[in-house]
């Protein structure tokens, strides 16, 4: 089969590789009909995530048709159209039973690596480095799905492939970011980063009852999307002082909750951002956190700062004193996708939201390297790329 393989920083290629097979009794093999390039794939593409190996198959946001199941798989059958969560969860450990599937005890074959780095290991992820299990990803014609009963969710008739695709990652990720904000009627939520996760965080904040959402970015096409599709107020951080502007727009009290949908590669134009970039370049610091600093400083007293952008390592100059002085609640972590999938798919089915609004590019799998390049460089007004492995039209 053909698959998008990683060969080094900014070097992904579509290669002919062996087809996946059922290895464990609870595995399934899925024929991929749609796969997306996720913003977090760009951390791998850029070479910021260690433990990638040449030839690793990329992709953790995908859906398709079940073509083979292991002998212990009961809930899904061959022929089912399914969307697959990017987190691999066993469904039976303590954390899965609490609904914290991203913290699953049992799905990372390289748990020892994560234990050395983080103290404890979370769940394995599709196509996201050997630190997260080294599983082959879904930007391919076929993919092996471990614990298929727990993850793969059948898509009801009337919901298209593209509408269901994002229920496996960016929609729940944005939704959970907003869910953690404990939004109450009248609340104002500020969202840093208007990539796909930020766009879904904006939509989700409204779905959860926010009165106003303020979207912060610098790319006009992303701010336009946030305003047009998300109905958010927008703020260009290169044109204004974010902190003062947020104060002014919230009657001097600051947003009730702040969502950081940027993560470890924050771009900024102020002195601290340049300092971070320099330190990251020499590996004195692994993560750049301009957005996080602004969020902590801008948030109202007693508010919530919700981190959904990915952080991987060590941070420097985190204004923890401001967080402490203001009694903030910081919430973070990988998305517990499983618990959000069914309810969000129902919202899609009921027509409350059409997730396809974020798609700007539809490419054949063969053109994935081009898709990565334009997404990375924010060229061609690119916000979200969807790959179709089996469609011969490009």
């Amino acid at each position: 089969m053909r698959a998008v393989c990683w060969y080094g920083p900014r070097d992904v290629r579509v290669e002919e590789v062996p087809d996946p097979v059922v290895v464990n009794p609870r595995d399934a093999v899925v024929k991929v009909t749609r796969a997306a390039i996720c913003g977090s794939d760009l951390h791998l593409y850029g070479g910021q995530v260690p433990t990638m190996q040449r030839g690793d198959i990329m992709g953790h946001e995908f859906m398709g048709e079940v073509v083979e199941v292991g002998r212990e798989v009961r809930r899904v059958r061959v022929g089912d159209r399914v969307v697959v969560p990017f987190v691999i969860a066993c469904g039976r450990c303590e954390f899965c039973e609490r609904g914290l599937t991203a913290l699953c005890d049992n799905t990372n074959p390289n748990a020892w690596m994560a234990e050395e780095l983080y103290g404890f290991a979370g769940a394995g992820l599709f196509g996201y480095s050997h630190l997260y299990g080294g599983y082959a990803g879904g930007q391919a014609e076929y993919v092996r799905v471990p614990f298929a009963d727990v993850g793969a969710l059948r898509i009801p008739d009337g919901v298209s492939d593209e509408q269901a695709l994002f229920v496996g990652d960016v929609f729940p990720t944005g939704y959970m970011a907003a869910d953690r904000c404990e939004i109450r009627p009248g609340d104002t939520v500020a969202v840093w980063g208007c990539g796909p996760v930020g766009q879904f965080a904006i939509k989700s904040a409204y779905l959860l009852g926010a009165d106003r959402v303020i979207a912060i970015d610098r790319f006009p096409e992303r701010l336009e999307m946030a305003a047009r599709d998300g109905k958010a107020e927008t703020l260009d951080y290169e044109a204004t002082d974010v902190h003062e502007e947020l104060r002014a727009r919230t009657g001097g009290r600051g947003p009730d909750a702040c969502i950081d949908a940027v993560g470890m590669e924050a771009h900024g134009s102020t002195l601290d951002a340049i300092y971070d970039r320099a330190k990251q370049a020499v590996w004195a610091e692994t993560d750049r956190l301009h957005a996080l600093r602004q969020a902590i400083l801008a948030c109202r007293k007693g508010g919530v700062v919700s981190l959904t952008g990915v952080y991987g390592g060590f941070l420097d100059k985190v204004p923890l004193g401001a967080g402490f002085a203001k009694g903030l609640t910081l919430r973070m972590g990988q998305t517990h996708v499983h618990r959000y999938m069914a309810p969000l798919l129902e919202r899609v089915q009921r027509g409350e939201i059409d997730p396809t609004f974020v798609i700007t590019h539809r490419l054949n799998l063969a053109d994935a390297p081009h898709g990565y390049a334009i997404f990375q460089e924010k060229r061609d007004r690119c916000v979200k790329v969807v790959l179709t492995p089996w469609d011969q039209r490009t």
Partner: protein
Amino acid sequence: VDGVASTTLAVIRGGVRTAARRAGRRRVVNVTDAERLASVVTGGALAAFALRRRSLGGAMLGLLGSALVCRGTTGHSTVYEAMGVQGPAAAVPGTVTIRAPVEVIEAVWRDVSGFPHELEEAELRCTPLPAGRGTRVDLTVARASIETVTETLRALKQLAETGEVATTAGQSSGRRRGSRPGRSG
């Protein structure tokens, strides 16, 4: 759990082998405590004596002294390793919490124990936890690496909780080419 498939056993063996390889890079203690103390004292005295003699012989004595101190502090002797001398049977403990009843865990353990040979001198103790928190499992293995104990407990937990051991063995990648004909032909 009625019987574990041979494929799963193979996976565990692979996992334990990987653990052993990782452990191999770390030096194993093969010198007894009394010998270690003697090495540090003798080595230290030799080095101190050598420091007063500024000659080639003094330098040699100094090197020998430092090597002995190293032997004592790390507990690893390269000579013993070459001679195949094994150290004191230090018991390596490990613990894990498993969300399964004691009977299930013991049944899985009976299925997997007996290999690799490192696990022959293993002792497993199960303690039920209150309020549905599962079972605390303590494993002590004589003369094993900490990695072997950790990975064995991990495999035991995965089998007891999920019925299989997570693996990426045999999955596809762009590293090897054309080993099997593709489905897409």
